[in-house]
């Protein structure tokens, strides 16, 4: 079957689904007074990363409560239905099928990129609108799907952002780029190096360390000899923590910068005072945005934590769905997806606009300065 036929078959499938959905909706409308629009919330409610699933749930539920208190969507009340994929790709596929079978056509989730990827195939095929608030893997949107969106930036954007900051703001004399030889860390470090080289700023060192290594004294002495005054580290907090701690002991007076993977309260535990002033790219702290003050209060009033990185992206996902449904006066998922691609939205994470693939056109990351007490503030 060639591509055109495939598309036609797909759109016919979608059309029939829509007819079926419309017919079902009519029947329901006939019997029930107040209609509800069910939105599925897919993510880990159990398992080792359940805490991240909670963040997503806090954001979605707060947005839904706000919506319902303000007239719902086109006169319909919204109901969030939780589906647990435990961040397991196999279970995510089962959950996606169940969502389709339950007749739900709007999904916020999934959370882990490895779960989102297989599930998004199903949603695309069945004409279900999906917005993930947490999956950052580029491959999810690379397939060029029409029904799949994100309210979070891609990992790789952090690298170019860090390079920009180094060139425009930090302006160091001698730069070293260090990484942990793993996909995430080396990938980001390479992006940073390439961007620096493109701007004619050649890092004096580009070297890997072994994840799990404890002794970095030789590397630090080498950086001292090279007169390095700025280090970009691509990797996670355990190694950076030790590098910082040992650099402070050896008196290497360089400034450090890392990606989101180092932003963790354990970093300060490992490195202590040496964390003060370290730069890191991390998702914007939307709960500190003055425009979100009301929302933060509403979440805190329920005794929940609004500071998690996925709370406001999840909140924004519901806002985008609600705004779209209101704008086109329909909850048809395929039409909504077309509208989302073509328009921009004012949300809890700022103005959101999409490119053809369903990725945000603007990064949701920001450069932060980390502090020894484990807190972070936007870098100057």
């Amino acid at each position: 079957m060639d591509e055109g036929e495939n598309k036609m078959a797909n759109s016919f499938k979608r059309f029939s689904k829509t007819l079926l959905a419309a017919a079902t909706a009519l029947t329901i409308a006939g019997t029930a007074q107040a209609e509800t629009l069910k939105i599925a919330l897919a993510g880990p409610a159990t398992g080792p990363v359940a805490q991240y699933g909670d963040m997503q749930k806090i954001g979605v539920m707060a947005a839904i409560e706000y919506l319902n208190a303000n007239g719902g969507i086109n006169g319909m009340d919204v109901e969030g239905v939780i589906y647990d994929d435990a961040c397991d790709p196999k279970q995510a596929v089962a959950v996606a099928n169940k969502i389709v079978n339950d007749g739900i056509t709007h999904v916020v989730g999934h959370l882990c990129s490895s779960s989102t990827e297989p599930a998004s195939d199903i949603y695309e095929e069945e004409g279900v609108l999906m917005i993930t608030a947490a999956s950052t893997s580029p491959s999810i949107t690379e397939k060029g799907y029409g029904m799949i969106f994100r309210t979070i930036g891609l990992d790789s954007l952090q690298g170019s952002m860090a390079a920009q900051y180094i060139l425009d703001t930090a302006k160091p004399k001698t730069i070293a780029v260090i990484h942990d030889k793993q996909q995430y860390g080396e990938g980001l470090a390479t992006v940073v190096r390439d961007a620096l080289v493109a701007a004619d700023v050649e890092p004096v060192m580009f070297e890997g360390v072994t994840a799990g290594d404890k002794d970095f004294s030789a590397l630090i002495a080498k950086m001292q000899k090279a007169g390095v005054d700025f280090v970009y580290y691509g990797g996670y907090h355990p190694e950076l923590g030790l590098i910082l701690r040992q650099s402070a002991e050896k008196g290497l007076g360089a400034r450090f910068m890392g990606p989101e993977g180092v932003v963790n309260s354990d970093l300060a535990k490992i490195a202590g005072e040496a964390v003060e002033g370290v730069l890191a790219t991390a998702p914007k702290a939307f709960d500190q945005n003055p425009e979100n003050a009301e929302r933060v209060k509403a979440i805190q009033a329920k005794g929940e934590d609004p500071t998690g990185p996925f709370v406001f992206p999840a909140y924004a996902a519901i806002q985008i769905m609600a705004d779209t449904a209101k704008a086109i006066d329909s909850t048809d998922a395929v039409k909504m997806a077309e509208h989302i691609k073509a328009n921009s939205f004012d949300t809890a994470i700022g103005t959101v606009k999409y490119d053809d693939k369903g990725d945000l056109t603007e990064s949701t990351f920001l450069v932060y300065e980390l502090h020894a007490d484990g807190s972070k503030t936007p870098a100057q």
Partner: protein
Amino acid sequence: MTEASLYLLQQIINGLTIGSTYALIAIGYTMVYGIIGMINFAHGEIYMIGSYVSFIVITGLLAMGNIALPVTLFAALLVAMLIAGTYGWSIERVAYRPLRGSNRLIALISAIGMSIFLQNFVALSQGSRDVALAPLISGSVLEFGSLETFAVTISWMQLLIWSVTLVTMTALTLFISRSRMGRACRACAEDLGMTNLLGIDTNRIISLTFIIGAALAAIAGLLLGLYYGVINPYIGFIAGLKAFTAAVLGGIGSIPGAMLGGLILGVAEALTAAYFPSEYKDVVAFGLLVTILLFRPTGILGKPEVEKV
């Protein structure tokens, strides 16, 4: 001195520091191998347990306040050596003694099993996340060279590691060469069966070997714990592997060989990281091992195994 030689000196200092701790752990491998011809793969985990025990003691005593730092450290050292020694003794009793006399491979599998058991035991009881300790000993003893080019620094912590290792190694050498028990150890290493026939309780000597090895690993556990400030249940694997390499490099079964092997490995790693991209650190260290074994299969100070008849 020129900048290049100052830099070389600094890297050798760094290498000797890490090498000293490899040597401390390597003793445990080499002593056990020397006497019963078996590689105790659970030895790295003993080092990790020593680290955990010393962290717990230090944190506890610091929380009580008013206790001088040297007292705290000394207490941590004693408790860690005691508990690690108990683990060493128990492991031998539980996992190795019942298998003695059977195929060497069986004891080896038992050792690997013990290693996995201990790693998971600590991960379950202490949590698998990193545990950190604030720097207790900071600052440098000595700094020389010009600040503009390159300054060589020796920190108090490095000095502590060297001096503790030196004292321990001297004590061990004296014990092995002068004491009655030490003589019994040497006799066991020469010929276990013959020593037994001469009326020496070889089981006691073997237990003692495990206890000494474990206590030395605990010393390394405390020192490296203080030096890096971070431990987790999985540090034993890499440390054990490096120390085992050091033991083989120096000649497994030979105590001075383990000491020398540790230092050579540490310095080789530091110098590789110094003059090549640091990715190649492990490549060169293990390449060195292969090269030395090709030309001297028994290691630098090892004696060829004599066929016992």
